[in-house]
């Protein structure tokens, strides 16, 4: 050690020199413990920087648990979601349809009819051939887009299209769809205008 000092190239011997020493162990340990406690606290209370999570909710799951799940409004929200995923591609999120692709549902007499028996048969069985919608003639094909949906979801979709975009018609319950489904018989032929008109509204 002393040899090293002698061979130092610093000429002025009297100048004070900054030395180093290791930080005391207890500071390091305390810091790590504090960081650990902070981490646990953060974990439990922060919601992981999710911009949707505010106190008093502690996490995204906690907040999800407080979302209203029952009632007519919830069915509408569910119907909207399902509609946009399944039917919206053709009929449009605004229900206006697209020329050459699908007729409108907004203002369609098939959708806002008093009863929903005919309406429910369209997504359950599909629709083919000539049909008049809001004064315009269509002659295309729609597959049975709703046949695979659970009763409750299809009911929610129909409730939604019957009350969105200015449409005003009664709600549809899951049990109604169940009844219609069980009364449908086996055939897989798509509906036509005449078949629809032959059944009760």
């Amino acid at each position, binding site marked *: 050690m002393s040899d090293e000092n002698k061979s130092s190239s610093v000429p002025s011997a009297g100048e004070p020199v*900054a030395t180093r020493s290791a930080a005391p162990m207890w500071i390091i340990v305390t810091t790590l413990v504090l960081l650990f406690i902070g981490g646990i606290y953060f974990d439990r209370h922060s919601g992981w*920087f999710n*911009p*949707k*999570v*505010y*106190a*008093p*909710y502690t996490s995204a799951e906690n*907040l999800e*648990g*407080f*979302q*209203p799940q*029952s*009632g007519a*409004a*919830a069915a*509408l*929200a569910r119907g*909207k979601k399902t509609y946009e995923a399944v039917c919206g591609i053709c009929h449009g999120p605004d229900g206006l349809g697209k020329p050459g692709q699908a007729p409108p549902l907004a203002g369609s007499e098939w959708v806002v009819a008093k009863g929903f028996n005919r309406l429910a048969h369209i997504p359950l069985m599909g629709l083919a051939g000539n049909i008049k919608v809001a004064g315009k003639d269509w002659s295309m094909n729609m597959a049975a887009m709703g046949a695979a949906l659970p009763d409750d979801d299809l009911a929610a979709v129909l409730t939604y299209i019957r009350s*969105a975009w200015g449409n005003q018609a009664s709600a549809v319950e899951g049990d109604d769809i169940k009844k219609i489904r069980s009364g449908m018989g086996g055939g897989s032929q798509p509906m036509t205008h005449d078949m629809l008109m032959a059944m009760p509204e």
Partner: protein
Amino acid sequence: MKTGLSIFIAAFIALGTSWCGFVLAPLLQLGSAQQTVILQTTDNWPLQRTGAATLGLQVYRAYGCAACHTEQVRQTGSAFEVTLTSLGNQKPADFIEFTKSLFVLPGLANYTNAIAASLNGWNGGLPKTLLTATDKDVATEMADRLKAVGVKSETAIIATGPDIARGWGSRLSVAADFLYDQPVQLGSLRAGPDLANIGVRAPDANWQLAHLYAPKSVTPNSTMPSFKFLFEVRKVGASPSPEALNLPKEFAAADGFEIVPKPAAKQLVAYLLSLKANVPLYEAPFTPATAAK
């Protein structure tokens, strides 16, 4: 200066981390905030303010209203509430008898007294709140049990906290509420009440104008300063102005004079009336009172 570089690096890291924490992280978190949808509806929230109300925000800012008023409702918790809406074909007395069979269930045992007390002397009037201040599991269990015997109920979510108890809002304030506020007037001191929901609490523009002109004229003992300079006292013309304030005698102008709001006062009131905190959002869920049928 052998340590110059280390000091620079240390200072850079210190300032850099706080910049990341105070500027970058909030930007990443909320910088892309957009209009959201009111829970269980297809309506947007918040709506862009009208022109007058947008200018009113600047008046609010200029006269330092935020020094005494906050615009942030706080919430300390959420509770579930189960309300009876239809007894099906049961008689009220049978139903009360039936609720006794619920008390042995582990989840509901703690609510025995509360339910019994709420049904004490009940004559069958509906809707009837059965359970308050409970949690989700208990509320769901209760609703399921009721459904099983053909009794209909609604489950509501109620935001709780001192601010909400004072009627200052229906739920906590969240970032989305301030989307169109530039700058946001959160405030930090409550010499006066919180104003986040004032547009619902005091929706009368004439009340607001009279309050600004002379707070004591509508709230005796008010310590809020009066903002008289936002009004003009002038001679009554050929016919009295329809905008003239209608004040109690001791605050009113002298005979032959009338007090009319200047544009800034009208803008400020338009802004105040646009302040609402009464719609449920995904991040601040609750059941609005009107939805409980």
